[in-house]
C-alpha cells in the first residue's frame, strides 16, 4: 500500500461530497526552494527593521535608550517563531515561499490545517533542523554557540515516511502538496487527414470500451514525444488484434489506426463531419489536378497505409 503511494507520489483524499481525488505530494527538493525563500524573506525583514531602528535611533533614544533593543528583540522573536504559524493559519496553509512555489500544507486527511497544527509543525522545525554542525568544525577559534542547521533529521524523516513528512509534519499530521496549475485538457485532433478516411472504414457496431478509451487517450498524449517508428511499434500491440477482429488489412499503419479510433471515440460528430467534408473537397481537387491520391506522398513515413485506404 505504502509503496504504491510512493511510486506516483500522490495522496488520495475523500471529500465531504464523497468524491475521491488525488493530490500530488511535494518532495523535499520542491519544498527546499520554498523554505529558502521564506528564510530570505525573514532575514530581509529582520535586517530591514534593524536598519530602520538604527536610522531612527536619534529620535527613539530620546524616549529611552532601550527602545531599539526592545523593538528589535520583539521583532526577532516574532518573525522567527510566528512567521510560519501566522501565514499558514491565515492563508490556508501557505507562506509566501509556498505561494511562490505553489505548495500548500494540508492535513493528512485532506482537510485544511488549523492553528494548532500550524504551531506544531513550525515549532518542531527546530527538531528537523538538527543535527546542527558547529562552526568550530571549520574554525577552531569560533565561539561554541553558533551552530549551522543541517536539516538532516528532517531529510531522514522525509525518506522514511511514505508521504514525505518531516518530524513536524508527522507530529502535526500534515502533508505538503503541490498545486501547479496544470494545462488545459484538449481533444487532440489528429493532424493527418487520412485518419478521417480511415474512420469510415471502421464498422459502426464496433464499440470502444472504457479501458480502451483510456489507453487511446494515453497513447495520444505520449505520441507527440515519440519518433514515428517508435509510435507504430507501440501502437501495433493494440492495433493488430483489432484490425484482425474487424477484418481490416493487417498492413494498415498502426499509429494511424489508433489515431482514427481516438478521433472516432473522442471527437464530436460535427467536428468529424467538418473534417470529413474538407477532406472530400481536397480529394476531388487533387483528382481534378490529376494527381494520383497516394497517401504515402502526403506524409512520407514508415507507415504503409495499405490498399484498402486507397479510397474514396
Amino acid at each position, binding site marked *: 500500500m505504502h509503496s504504491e503511494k510512493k511510486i506516483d507520489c500522490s495522496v488520495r483524499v475523500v471529500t465531504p461530497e464523497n468524491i475521491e481525488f488525488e493530490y500530488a505530494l511535494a518532495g523535499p527538493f520542491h519544498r527546499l526552494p520554498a523554505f529558502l525563500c521564506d528564510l530570505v524573506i525573514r532575514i530581509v525583514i529582520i535586517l530591514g527593521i534593524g536598519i530602520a531602528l538604527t536610522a531612527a535611533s536619534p529620535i527613539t533614544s530620546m524616549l529611552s535608550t532601550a527602545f531599539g533593543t526592545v523593538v528589535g528583540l520583539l521583532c526577532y522573536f516574532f518573525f522567527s517563531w510566528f512567521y510560519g504559524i501566522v501565514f499558514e493559519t491565515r492563508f490556508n496553509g501557505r507562506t509566501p515561499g509556498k505561494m511562490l512555489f505553489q505548495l500548500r500544507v494540508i492535513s493528512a486527511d485532506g482537510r485544511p490545517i488549523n*492553528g494548532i497544527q500550524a504551531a506544531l509543525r513550525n515549532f518542531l522545525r527546530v527538531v528537523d533542523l538538527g543535527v546542527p554542525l558547529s562552526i568550530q568544525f571549520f574554525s577552531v577559534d569560533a565561539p561554541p554557540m553558533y551552530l549551522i542547521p543541517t536539516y538532516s533529521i528532517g531529510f531522514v524523516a522525509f525518506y522514511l515516511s511514505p508521504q514525505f513528512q518531516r518530524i513536524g509534519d508527522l507530529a502535526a499530521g500534515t502533508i505538503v502538496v503541490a498545486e501547479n496549475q496544470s494545462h488545459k485538457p484538449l481533444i487532440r485532433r489528429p493532424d493527418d487527414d487520412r485518419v478521417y478516411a480511415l474512420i469510415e472504414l471502421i464498422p459502426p457496431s464496433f464499440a470502444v470500451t472504457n479501458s480502451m478509451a483510456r489507453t487511446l487517450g494515453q497513447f495520444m498524449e505520449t505520441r507527440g514525444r515519440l519518433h514515428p517508428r517508435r509510435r507504430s511499434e507501440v501502437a501495433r500491440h493494440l492495433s493488430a488484434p483489432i484490425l484482425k477482429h474487424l477484418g481490416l488489412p493487417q498492413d494498415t499503419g498502426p499509429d494511424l489506426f489508433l489515431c482514427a479510433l481516438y478521433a472516432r471515440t473522442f471527437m464530436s460528430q460535427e467536428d468529424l463531419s467538418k473534417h470529413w467534408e474538407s477532406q472530400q473537397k481536397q480529394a476531388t481537387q487533387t483528382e481534378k489536378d490529376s494527381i494520383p491520391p497516394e497517401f504515402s506522398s502526403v506524409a512520407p513515413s514508415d507507415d504503409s497505409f495499405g490498399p484498402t485506404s486507397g479510397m474514396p
Partner: protein
Amino acid sequence: MSVGTSLDKRRQDWERLEVLMNQLAKGKIRGEPGSVSAEISSLYRAACADLSMADQYRLSPDTVAFLHNLVGRAHNTIYRSRRFQYQLWFDVAFREAPRRIFADPCVHLCGLLFFGLFSFTAVLAVSSDIYPDFPMQVLGADHISQMEQMYGDIEFDRSIDDNLAMVAFYIQHNTSIGLECFAYGPLVIPGLYATAYNATFLGTTFGYMARGDTPGGESFLEFVTAHGAFELTAIALAAAAGLRIGSGWLITSGLSRIASLQLQARKALPVMSVSAVLFLLAAFTEGLISPSSLPYVFKAMWGMFSSSLLMYYFIVLGYPTEASNAA
C-alpha cells in the same frame, strides 16, 4: 453523445471555476460574495461529479489529472482554515495549559532532573572546602577565566548599549541551550543527556560564582537575579516538551507509533508555548533590567515577582480542580 461534445460543454464550467478561484485568491471579489461562493460550490460539485464519472465519460488521463488538480484547488478554496479564535486560545493559555503542565509526568521528570542536578552541583561547587577542584573539573580552566573576566567587566552604571554585546551573547547562549534540550528531546536519551549536561554546567557556574571570593562573582549574581527564574524554568519546560514528544513514539499505549507521536505532540504544545513565552520574558528581562543601572533591590524584587508569577501560573492555575478532574 461523443466525449468531445460533452467535454467541450464541461470545459467551460471548469474554466469558469478556475477564473472564480483565481479572483477569490486575489481578493478581487468584493461585491456579491454570497452569489460567487454559491457559484463556486456548485461548479465544484459539478467538477467532483465529472471526476467521479471520469471512467464513464471516457476522459483521457490528461483530463483526469487536470480534474484532480482542479478539484483539489477548489476543495482548498471552499474548506479554508479557520480564523484565529481568541476566546479559545485564552482558555487554552490560562486554564488548560497550566493544568496540563502541572499534571505532566514529563515536566516532573525534567524539572526534577534539571533543578535537582542544578541544585546538587551548585551545592558541590559553592563550598571551597569539600571539593575545591569541582568547578575546575566541570567547567575547565579556560571557561572559568573567561567568565571571571566577562563579569568582572560589567559595570552596571553604564548605559545599556555598552553592555549590549554581552547581553546579546547571553540571550543567544541561553536560548540555544533551551533549543538544544528541546530538539534532542524527541530522541529521548540525547534529550535527557543535554538536560543533565546543561543543568550540571549551569549549576556549577552558579555555585562557583557564589563562592564569595570569585572575581566577578558579585556582578554575576546581580546580573542573573532578575531573569534567572524565567530562564531556568523555560529551559526545564523546553526539555519536558521535547521528552513528551519523544515518549510518543517510545510508549505507544496501543496506538500506532505515528498516531501516538501526533497525540503526544499535541499534548506537548502548551508546554512548548509556555516555554517560548518564558524565553521571551527572560530575554526582555535580560536585555532591559539585568544589565541596567537600576538598584539591586529592584532587580531582586523583579526576581521575586517573576518567581511568584510562575508559582501562581503553575500551581494556583494548574492545581487540579474537581471540574478539570471530571473533564
